[in-house]
């Protein structure tokens, strides 16, 4: 096999952390190559080296046998390496078309922008990917998942030799993923080499030809999709056999008291007539396609994007609809979808990030460092947050570990009702199970949980009941045996019920 | 336009423009002008830039020209800067007189006030006398203002007569009276045996505190302006000489001049020297009595 792109003995450390340690492997021309590994294994760092953002301390990259040096993103782009970053890198002030072409605008003579051409090209691209967005929409108005899709579209808009996709699917459901994969395969057919990172193993098997596994900054093997199994790959990734999945407790909670009661919630143009109840000890999932209004509903309940109509009650007491603070005091907690914008404060230490919601909740006046240290350390262990020190800022963490810090923030508050919006986005398989275990434990101790997740297997594994949304309306409820892949997807996409 | 309508007995409207609204002594000019205005039955509009910014002053001046007031009395921040505009006003038939600070090369009809260079010379002479012709002097000024520069030049000029006197420093307080107090303190640190301070503006006598570090037995103090804390400082011996200007006269005389000009009576001279009041502990009571009379409208 012709080795197009080769990493040879690539090493890089950040302070005491060895992010990459002598990584050597190669990617063949025209293949779709997956890169998997636990959170913090070094995947993003490796890809950032390829994209010219991080410089390796040792080792070299080769392209068709020639050494490849990218000392800046611009250089990498010029060499035909396009990348979709794990962290959102949108221009909130530009339109969707402006975002797609930022830095590589289509121009007429003299550097004048050819708006019409860019508009048309954007439109075509969005249609191919089935992204229901107008090219003129300001980027800041898009929800996280659509914004992620637009960035994928951005990478597809240009002819590059190597396309790098670092966790592009974290908040997409299978439907959007399918559209994306179709495009990626088309690119492959045109000879493009694709590097793909994901924590969703089934997805990896669906798309990729070969799979390279990384562990603790080291290369842990490359597998042919044809000849390997998910279990083998996961074992190579974590170094042991993963724990078994939880099975949902089923609908044994019908007698339990209702903790969260939502009646007739509506917001013009977004969603309408959403009524639901979550009982004590229950995990209810809200499933739907991207843009179906799930995040809107959660934020409306929490009060950060207030609804126009409807009521929310926690343990029978009405909650004010327009104040996050009131919601928090009533016992609601929301783990938001967008960890960079809504979840983390990058100027503060990880410890402070984790401790703040809890301190606000219990109304502490003084900062109790001792107590917080023990709380934070417990979270760190429970979620297996891979960090040299909780005193460092979150920007030194890998994406998945950042997400774990976000989850820790709210798990530490032990609320009455936990609202989760994509809580395990970008989290590796092992940690995902840990988080599920923690949620289960808290719920069994009396909490109620309403969860939004685009990861259908996760929803099926964790939820007692599944509410399906489409175009801002609840389409139905599935529980127990009726909750199957097919049934859920049919409700989420089916036209007949409309 | 109707602005020059002479048929109706229209009340005359004169503009009084100070260098800046935030310099306290100009209020006396306004007081004097308003009083005279009332006596003469004319309207006096007091307007100026809020800081001593020549450009903003020019804008105000031009604005009065387009408003076609009947006369303008202005204390000029920057003579060359305003020259052409003053000329334009005069050419347009609006008489202009200057007060406090002149624009000698312009077509202004008259100037009422003290020649800043001369006033500076007086300060230099007084310092020479106080120091008996030998010792060191430090100046306090605010860089950028032409009239202050002229006073400074005047003082330095007359100090040349005293070969035993040397100027150690010229401090720039940037129109900030707190900065002035700080510099007096710092300067005293640096030159503990300083012979005399000469301040070409009134900042040091806005408060009694600014002169705290000055030891009168070693260091003499001469300042422009007689406002607020000045008399008390003279009495306590911290200050030896203050130069008072004809604050009320700036306003009242200018308005009288304008009124005469409009009624066809040209002033006798282009430069009407108001003279300065050299206030020392000896004549302080006399001066204060006079000042009070002026203030209460006598």
């Amino acid at each position, binding site marked *: 096999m012709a080795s197009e792109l080769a990493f040879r003995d690539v090493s890089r450390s950040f302070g005491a952390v060895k992010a990459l340690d002598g990584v050597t492997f190669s990617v063949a021309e025209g293949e779709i190559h997956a890169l998997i590994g636990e959170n913090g294994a070094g995947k993003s760092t490796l890809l950032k080296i390829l*994209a010219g*953002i991080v410089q390796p301390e040792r080792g070299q990259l080769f392209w068709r046998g020639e050494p490849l040096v990218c000392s800046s*993103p*611009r250089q990498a*782009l*010029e060499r035909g390496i396009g*990348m979709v*970053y794990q962290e959102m*890198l*949108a*221009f*909130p*002030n*530009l339109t969707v078309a*402006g975002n797609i072409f*930022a*830095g*590589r*605008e289509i*121009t007429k003579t*003299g*550097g*004048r*922008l050819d708006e019409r051409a860019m508009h048309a090209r954007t439109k075509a691209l969005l249609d191919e990917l089935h992204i229901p967005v107008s090219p003129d929409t300001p980027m800041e108005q898009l929800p996280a998942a659509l914004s992620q899709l637009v960035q994928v579209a951005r990478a597809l808009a240009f002819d590059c030799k190597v396309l790098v996709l670092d966790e592009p699917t974290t908040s997409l459901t299978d439907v959007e993923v399918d559209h994306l994969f179709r495009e990626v395969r088309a690119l492959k057919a045109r000879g493009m080499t694709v590097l793909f990172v994901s924590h969703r193993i089934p997805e990896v098997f669906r798309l990729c030809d070969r799979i390279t596994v990384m562990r603790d900054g080291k290369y842990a093997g490359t597998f042919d999709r044809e000849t390997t199994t998910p279990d083998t790959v996961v074992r190579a990734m974590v170094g042991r056999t993963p724990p078994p999945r939880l099975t949902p407790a089923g609908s044994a909670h019908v007698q339990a008291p209702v903790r969260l009661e939502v009646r007739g919630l509506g917001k013009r143009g977004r969603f309408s007539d959403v009524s639901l109840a979550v009982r004590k000890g229950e995990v209810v999932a809200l499933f739907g396609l991207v843009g179906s209004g799930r995040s809107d509903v959660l934020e409306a309940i929490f009060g950060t994007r207030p609804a126009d109509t409807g009521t929310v009650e926690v343990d029978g007491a009405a909650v004010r609809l327009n104040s996050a603070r009131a919601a928090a005091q009533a016992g609601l907690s929301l783990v938001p979808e967008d960890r960079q914008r809504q979840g983390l404060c990058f100027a503060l230490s990880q410890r402070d990030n984790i401790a703040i919601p809890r301190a606000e909740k219990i109304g502490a006046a003084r900062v109790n460092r001792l107590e917080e240290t023990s709380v934070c350390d417990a979270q760190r262990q429970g979620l297996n947050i891979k960090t040299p020190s909780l005193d460092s800022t979150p920007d030194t963490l890998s994406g998945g570990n950042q997400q774990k810090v976000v989850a820790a923030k709210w798990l530490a508050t032990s609320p009455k009702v936990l609202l989760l919006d994509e809580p395990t986005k970008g989290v590796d398989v092992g940690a995902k199970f840990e988080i599920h275990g923690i949620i289960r434990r808290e719920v069994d101790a009396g909490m109620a949980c309403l969860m939004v997740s685009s990861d259908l297997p996760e929803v099926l594994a964790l939820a007692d009941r599944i509410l399906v949304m489409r175009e801002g309306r609840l389409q139905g409820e599935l529980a127990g045996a009726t909750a199957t892949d097919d049934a859920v997807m049919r409700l989420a996409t089916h036209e007949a019920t409309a | *336009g*109707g*602005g020059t*309508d002479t048929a109706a007995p229209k009340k005359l409207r004169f503009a009084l423009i100070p260098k800046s*609204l935030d310099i306290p002594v100009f209020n006396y000019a306004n007081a004097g002008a308003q009083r005279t205005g009332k006596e003469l039955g004319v309207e006096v*509009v*007091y*307007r100026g830039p*809020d*800081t001593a*910014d*020549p*450009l*903003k002053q*020019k*804008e*105000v001046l*031009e*604005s*009065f020209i*387009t*408003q*076609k007031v009947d006369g303008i009395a202005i204390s000029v921040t*920057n003579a*060359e*800067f305003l*020259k*052409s505009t003053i*000329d334009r006003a005069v050419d347009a038939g609006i008489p202009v007189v200057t007060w406090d600070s002149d624009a000698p090369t312009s077509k202004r009809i008259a100037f009422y006030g003290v020649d800043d260079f001369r006033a500076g010379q007086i300060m230099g002479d007084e310092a020479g006398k106080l120091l008996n012709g030998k010792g060191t002097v430090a100046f306090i000024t605010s*860089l*950028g203002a*032409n009239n202050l*520069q002229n006073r400074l030049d005047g003082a330095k000029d007359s100090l040349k007569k005293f070969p035993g006197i040397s100027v150690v420093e010229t401090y*720039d307080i940037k129109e900030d009276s707190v900065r002035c107090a700080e510099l007096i303190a710092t300067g005293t640190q640096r030159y503990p045996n300083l012979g005399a301070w000469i301040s070409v503006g009134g900042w040091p006598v806005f408060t009694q505190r600014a002169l705290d570090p000055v030891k009168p037995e070693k260091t003499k103090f001469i300042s422009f302006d007689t406002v607020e804390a000045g008399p008390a400082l003279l009495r306590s011996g911290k200050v030896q000489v203050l130069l008072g200007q004809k604050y009320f006269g700036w306003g009242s005389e200018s308005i009288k001049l304008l009124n005469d000009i409009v009624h066809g009576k040209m002033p006798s001279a282009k430069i009407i020297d108001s003279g300065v009041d050299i206030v020392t502990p000896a004549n302080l009571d006399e001066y204060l009595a006079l000042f009070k009379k002026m203030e209460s409208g006598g």
Partner: protein
Amino acid sequence: MKPIWRAREFSTILILALEVLFFTWYLWPAGGGAHPFLNLDNFLLVLKYSSIYGIAAVGAAIVIIAGLIDLAPGAIIGLTSVVTGYFFVEAGWSLPAAMIAGLLVGVLAGGVSAFLVVKIGLPPFIATLGVMGIWRGVGFIVTEARFYDLSSKLPQDWHVAGVSVDWAGPIIMVALALGFHWLMRTFQWGRAVFAVGGNETAALFSGIRVGRVKTLVYIIAGLLASVSGVVLAVVQGQGKADLATGYELDIIASAVVGGASLTGGRGSVLGAVLGALIFGVLRNALPQIPGATFYDRMIVGVVVIVIVVMDQMLVKRSRA
């Protein structure tokens, strides 16, 4: 193409119009006669003085759109007037040559700011604050706190191609505003400025030469400030180090009132000029109100707030 009332500048224009209407009404001469505010001479006056802020505000808007800030324009205006004055009056150069020397001041000054921000990585606020002190200081050192009188070497009542030199400022302001508006809206470079201000990291990762964009932005801002300084020196006839002291805040305020957001990525060059006119009308009209002498500052403060509130309401509405 968006309809005109959707344009970001529309609300600023509306506010300016309201302001003019208000003063026209308020200052209506009681006994008939000429209107002291609503007349051509007075409009030229407003334009002439606004242009000093407005030209520099074009640069400030671009700087702010790029997510930066520049506190130096006031000092650059002052130093430019000094340098132009020096070469014209002292060194005896021809006026065009002296003007070019003045413009070079701005280019150089912008380059220094850019160097500190881009190469050394200083925060823009503090870097340009230091730079502001330096240029003011240089002006004082050159002049020793005196000034150059250009006016006496220039023709009285000077007309160029039949147009009074008083019109120079307004004409240059409008030309620059339109030119840079066009540049910012229809050229790749302008788009890059918006991108850098919107998300610097993303811009870098998109292959935009962020450092180069920022450098050019500061150089343009410096150049425009010195255009303003040259206009000041020539039209007003003086070169003095302390000219335009404190104007940096007024210039930034013009840009902000015109829609620039200090968080970067948003703003309008045309809006900045309109903002300068809004302040210019205030500076012109307030002194015409009898008895308001000591109220000026307060009124300006209140008006700034009212304008921004109105703008916010207008823009919100037009978005909905």
